[in-house]
């Protein structure tokens, strides 16, 4: 067992340091790159926090939808394949819900401020 602090706590501490202490000292293109870098650290923190629960639910949904077992990668490949072949489509019960839930979970990690995501979250209960 690894000791504390956790990776999440460490990354958050680094991101906060860069945001509060370093960003105000830097200007121009480096300031832009620093902002992007801080965004990347924040993304990693969100992924560490949310990924396990999201992946488990996605795997369960895919297993039901496809009636098969496998890793998340294998299941996604199988779904992609069946959509490409026209074996499942938006009329297939559960497909639209699955794609929506999976996409919402991705946005919660990637870009929680994206306007389309916030709209869907707010108006439709996500």
């Amino acid at each position, binding site marked *: 067992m690894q000791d504390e602090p956790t990776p999440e706590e460490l990354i958050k501490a680094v991101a906060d340091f860069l945001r509060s202490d370093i960003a105000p000292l830097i200007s121009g293109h480096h300031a832009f790159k620093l902002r992007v870098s801080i965004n990347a650290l924040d993304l990693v923190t969100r992924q560490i926090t949310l990924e396990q629960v999201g992946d488990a639910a996605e795997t369960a949904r895919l297993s039901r939808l496809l009636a098969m077992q496998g890793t998340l990668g294998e299941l996604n490949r199988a779904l992609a394949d069946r959509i490409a072949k026209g074996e499942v489509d938006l009329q297939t019960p559960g497909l639209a819900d699955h794609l*929506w839930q999976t996409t919402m979970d991705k*946005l919660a990690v990637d870009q929680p401020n994206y306007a*389309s995501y916030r709209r869907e979250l707010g108006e439709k209960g996500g």
Partner: protein
Amino acid sequence: MEASLGRCVASWCPGATGVTGAVRLSGGASQETWSFDIVHPAGNIGAILRRAPQGHGASPRAVGLNAEAVLMRLAYDAGVPSPRVLHVLEPQDELGTGFIMQRVDGETIARKILRDDRYAQARPKLARQLGNVLAVIHGLPLPQLPELRRMTAAKEIAEFERDYHSFGWPRPVFELALRWLRDRDPGPSQEVTLVHGDFRHGNLIIGPDGVRAVLDWELAHLGDPMEDLGWICVNSWRFGEIDKPVGGFGAREDLFAGYQSTGRRVDPDRVMFWEVMGTLRWGLMCCGMMQRFRSNPEHSVERAMIGRRASETEIDLLRLLAPRA
């Protein structure tokens, strides 16, 4: 750089005594943009150099800088807001291939155009203006155009599929979109025109008075004119203003009205089809950025983070193809 530019400028700009303030603005390995001032007794002239250094080939989809210069001159002469092309580089300039154009003052950064008070008067007018500009571009006479790729939706979808499969990463939403596009491809357009190919924020210079210049003809081709109208409506170019489909500043009706004021016709169904095409296209471009991040030794964190924006286009595709009740 200033010495080479000075020699070049002296050869075609009578009275010019040199150049000053040359700075590189942007660009990747294959293409550069420089800003500089031509020193002239009658007053300095702001100029932009767009060039590919010697030995660099352009991407297969790019028209090439010489063709870009021809298109910009045609657009300028037809009344499209456009920088005047001052000089097309020649071998003796020893600056590579490319051209020098007049520098147009204004803003290209979407967030400023959409938020700053400076552009408050321009915003409500832009969609109609841009519709008008696109109509003029689409009306340029074909025989005058340089050689360009002839594209159709079917060809483009095939390229999307090839790109998507090259990434080796399953994306069920992209598969759904590809399937939707193949099933609903309206077929080749009856009318084939010049298509700008990248008509959106970043490639438009905006001033407080409205649109001042159309830039970057790199992806110009022949095809369905509705493609340009669909591309500027893609949600990725709304920068948060998602209820204003045209670039985050306007309504489709205004864009269409500006376009039709010239006598040209809009096919709203085709425009919507191209909006879905464009959404997937930007999603694939995000995935391409992730590939370049991985394969490129410079490990650009910007490219890496653009890779994580592909999911934005997935939610936008779902909003278009499978809206929730």
